[in-house]
């Protein structure tokens, strides 16, 4: 279980990471704990899988990956595990989920593809499709980004306290 200090740490770690020699000391000071205490908690989260990775997210448009497509598939139930494992290994696939279907919407499997342009996205999807011998998929290209954020965990809880 997470205690109040955990929630405080998790919330503050989503703020701007200080680009200074001792960033964790600066963050710890803000919270009012020691740097060692903070690092120890962070290492514990990493060990337990609460933290998946520590690092940077790049703006993919700026680094040349201008196109992104959500590619939705119809995968037979008995092949979901196998296909998921194949796709998860590929660098071009950044997100891969099996999902519920809905009436009128039979797609049960989703991959996020990033590429330099739409043609490249289409070519990647075609390759994936051939690789698993399943051709029922739809490309959902984004036409406008209304919001893209990292999740602000426990921020709302802190707001309630204030």
């Amino acid at each position, binding site marked *: 279980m997470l205690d109040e200090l955990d929630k405080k740490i998790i919330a503050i770690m989503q703020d701007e990471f200080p680009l200074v020699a001792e960033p964790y000391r600066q963050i710890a000071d803000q919270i009012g704990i020691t740097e060692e205490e903070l*690092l120890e908690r962070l290492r514990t989260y990493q060990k337990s899988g609460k933290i998946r990775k520590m690092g940077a997210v790049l703006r993919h448009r700026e680094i040349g990956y201008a196109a992104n497509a959500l590619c939705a598939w119809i995968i037979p139930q008995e092949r979901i595990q196998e296909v998921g494992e194949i796709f998860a290994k590929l660098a071009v696939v950044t997100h891969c989920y099996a999902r519920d279907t809905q009436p009128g919407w039979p797609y049960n499997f989703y991959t996020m593809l990033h590429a330099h342009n739409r043609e490249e996205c289409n070519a990647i999807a075609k390759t994936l499709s051939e690789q698993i011998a399943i051709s029922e998929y739809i490309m959902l290209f984004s036409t406008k980004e209304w919001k893209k954020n990292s999740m602000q965990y426990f921020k709302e809880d802190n707001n309630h306290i204030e």
Partner: protein
Amino acid sequence: MLTAFDKRLLNILQTDLSFDSRPFAVIAQRLGTEESIVIERLQLLKKQGFIRRIGPFFDSSKLGYIGTLVALEVETDAIPAVATFINAHCGVTHNYERDGKFNLWFTLFSHNRKAQDEMLDSVRKLAGVVQLINLPATKKFKVSVQFNLS
């Protein structure tokens, strides 16, 4: 333009910022350079907009959140108002207009099922929303946005 040094730096920074007192010194050592050079370069790359965010990436389910993907069919004229309403919710991380019958797609993280239902009900009632489908994940195979710069 990114230099060869920037690309090496960003490739490391995407996954390997350590929980050490001086994490940038650790990276500098791997790159055969000085801590101060790494920090200066990162400040510049951040300012130039190449870096969206630096920090830990949490597993939402292990923090007690439930996530879902939601697709909406919205009348074209109503999209800006509906998108703005959705954006205002702090559990919404991505909200994209997309080609097709379902033309607005967003991801939502909530503390529990009840909070998720309430949010989706309020979206369903918005003017111009024809249909909403909730597509919760049944299995997560991969979440790793990582680009190999070369």
